[in-house]
């Protein structure tokens, strides 16, 4: 709920956090390999990829929309970077090209949805296919490999023992939290998701702020692709497949309403960590990858069921 968002954590996040801690406690008991420093750092690092994509997804879902194209944008931004680098651009400029492409895809989504009045599901479904197709065309379906060590440090570097992707992820969450709680952009995002018509009638430029949410999602997909390329030393046109679903899962597990208007990035961070811990734990326990899918799907369903039950109760109490 959108009660005082000034506090870092409130009711719903506390519940999600309790879920995360319970999961960690269970794994700690179940396997000696879970609660080691190196494994925990590894889990958080693994979560950074989906975690960053999920921040953009949170903005989009808060406006009442959905973005199915984030995974394809991850691939296209990476391939754009690779192509630019291969063509002789210095790596910094190539990275700028990649980020610009991601932002442009997001703005394209925003324009289709606000100016073209397409439902977000359709607009981003189309973008999902278009961006993937362009990534495959540009790269001829092959990975583009070989980047300078300075760039690869993005994924491999550490500061005070903390992997750089984790620091980047936390920084992005901090900025997103600030944007959502303290700025016009944030307030309007909640207002539009809560009641688009009332927002427009209050003089809010609904189109601009809705498009901004998709632009943020596109840009953060591109940031994610930088991390992926740096980690693999290779830009792959088939990168990011199914990321949209993992990101949506992190957002809804984190308590953001798919109807828009309520939720926080803190919740999303916890949601992303739950997904990461679950995957890691199941791997450590030697659960087959088939069964893992069943487990993860079940967690998503249960999390949303519980969330909706709580919401209904809150609404009934209000009436």
């Amino acid at each position, binding site marked *: *709920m*959108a*009660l*005082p968002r*000034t506090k870092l954590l409130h009711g719903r996040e506390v519940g999600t956090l309790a879920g995360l801690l319970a999961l960690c406690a269970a794994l700690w008991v179940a396997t000696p390999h879970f609660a080691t420093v190196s494994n925990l750092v590894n889990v958080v690092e693994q979560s950074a990829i989906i975690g960053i994509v999920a921040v953009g997804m949170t903005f989009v879902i808060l406006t009442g929309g959905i973005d199915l194209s984030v995974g394809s944008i991850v691939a296209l931004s990476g391939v754009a970077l690779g192509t630019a680098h291969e063509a002789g651009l210095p790596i910094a400029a190539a990275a700028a090209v990649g980020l610009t492409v991601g932002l442009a895809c997001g703005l394209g989504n925003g324009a289709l949805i606000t100016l073209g009045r397409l439902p977000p599901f359709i607009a981003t479904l189309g973008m999902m296919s278009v961006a993937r197709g362009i990534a495959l065309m540009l790269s001829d379906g092959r990975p583009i490999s070989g980047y300078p060590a300075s760039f690869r440090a993005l994924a491999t570097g550490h500061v005070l023992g903390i992997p750089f992707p984790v620091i980047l992820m936390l920084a992005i969450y901090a900025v997103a939290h600030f944007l959502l709680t*303290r*700025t*016009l*952009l944030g*307030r*309007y995002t*909640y*207002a539009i998701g*809560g*009641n688009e*018509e*009332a*927002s*427009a*009638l*209050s*003089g*809010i*430029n609904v189109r601009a702020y809705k498009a901004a949410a998709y632009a943020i999602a596109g840009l953060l997909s591109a940031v994610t692709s930088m991390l992926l390329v740096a980690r693999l030393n290779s830009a792959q046109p088939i990168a990011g497949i199914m990321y949209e679903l993992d990101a949506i899962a992190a957002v809804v597990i984190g308590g953001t309403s798919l109807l828009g*208007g*309520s939720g926080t990035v803190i919740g999303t961070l916890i949601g992303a960590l739950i997904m990461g811990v679950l995957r890691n734990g199941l791997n450590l326990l030697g659960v087959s990858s088939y069964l893992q899918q069943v487990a993860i799907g079940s967690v998503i369903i249960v999390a949303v069921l519980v969330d909706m039950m709580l919401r209904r109760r809150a*609404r009934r*109490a*209000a*009436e």
Partner: protein
Amino acid sequence: MIPSASEPHPRPPEPIVLRMFGIRKAFPGVVALDGVDLEVRAGEVHVLLGENGAGKSTLMKVLSGAHAMDAGRIELAGSEVAISGPRHARDLGIGIIYQELALVPDLSAAENVFLGREPRRGPGLVDRGAMVAASRRILQTLGASFDPGLPVRVLSIAQRQLVEVARALSLEARILVMDEPTSALTERETGALFATIRRLTSQGVAVIYISHRLDEIFEIGDRVTVLRDGRRVATREVDGADRRELVRLMADREIDERVPRPAARRGDELLRVEGLGRHGVLHDVSFRVHAGEIVGFAGLLGSGRTEVARAIFGIDPHDAGRVFMRGRPARISSPRDAIRAGIGLLTEDRKRQGLVLELSIRENIVLPVLGSMSRFGIVSRRMERERASKHAAGLRIKTPSLEQVVLNLSGGNQQKVVLAKWLACEVDVLILDEPTRGIDVGSKQEVYQLIHRLASEGVGIVLISSELPEIVGLADRILVMRAGRVVAELSGDEASQESVLAHAVGA
């Protein structure tokens, strides 16, 4: 509405069809019903009267099985029943017509009447012919002439209500509950509905009628039960009941139901509209609003009053005419432009168009002016709090804190939040579209006082209202609309409810 002297209808005391004793219902934090008794006779129109939150709707939800009561007893025709749910209530002959109609818009009227109980013609096959014929028969007894094969979507609200009534009758309802059925009806439709109600009561159906409108009670009611704070305070015969007494019983304080007329104090011209038109909707609408002036827009539903407001505020496009603010042409193509030009619009549907229910009172109040309280896109919380509390304080919004989510407030308090929003905006011209719809008597008075205060501070007010006493009492000038045109302009002194109504209906 003309409060006509209702014709005498002498009636022997009819048998009692419904008795509710000591009904109690508590929700977390609030006792909604605290031992309410109600007794309803066959063939009577029994009015339930009370402010918002008095318990009328809760009582009816208990009767219809939507809420389980915590304590109490219900007798139907003398024998005790334990109503287990909506379906059971329906089987017991209790029909409810809610304020927000519960029809499926894309199904036909006949399909709606028989929804869930379609006449069969073999397994899984619906007997359409029988369904349409039966619906037509019922609708005809209600005096309706439209084709029951038409989808509900194309029917007027009054016709939809008839579909609801027909559905209740097809279930052989002996007790029919109507929750503010006239709130969206025109005068003529209201008349037709009352005729339907009289027809039903003459057949022995008991009608429990919930309304805020005192005039209606005298027109249609036989007896009236007043609820206040979850208790029954009185039951009276409508004949011989006194209007002021009823208001006092509802509110437990003397409220002047009449609206005091403000002294005229016209300042400079603020808003000028010239020849506003939109094909098929508005024709050549012109008027001026001066500082400190209250300009009333009267007219039946669908006469174009709301459409004028929407066109000026930049929601709907217009294809003719110009709008001036303080003598300068104002180019308005969106609500943003309108607010920038100094115009505010309080819409008639506060939940859908006025509020973001999941945001707090503070966040709702400052929504239109947030931009002016931010630097580099970062909102100043201090300025926000100051502005919100300044405008909330003057309106006496009943809440422990401005951080309360608007969803949890009563209708009257929600409306005050929307008003506070436009006060915080400090607009020059404020258009109020049905500002007192669905709010209780006490809140209404506060809204009236606020309108006066704004006018005395030099704001130009455009007041759109279906409540004739309200518009006649408040406005300095009244423009009457009919079929998209302004058909009369009356000064506040010469206007009476009768004269306004006569222009509105074209008499």
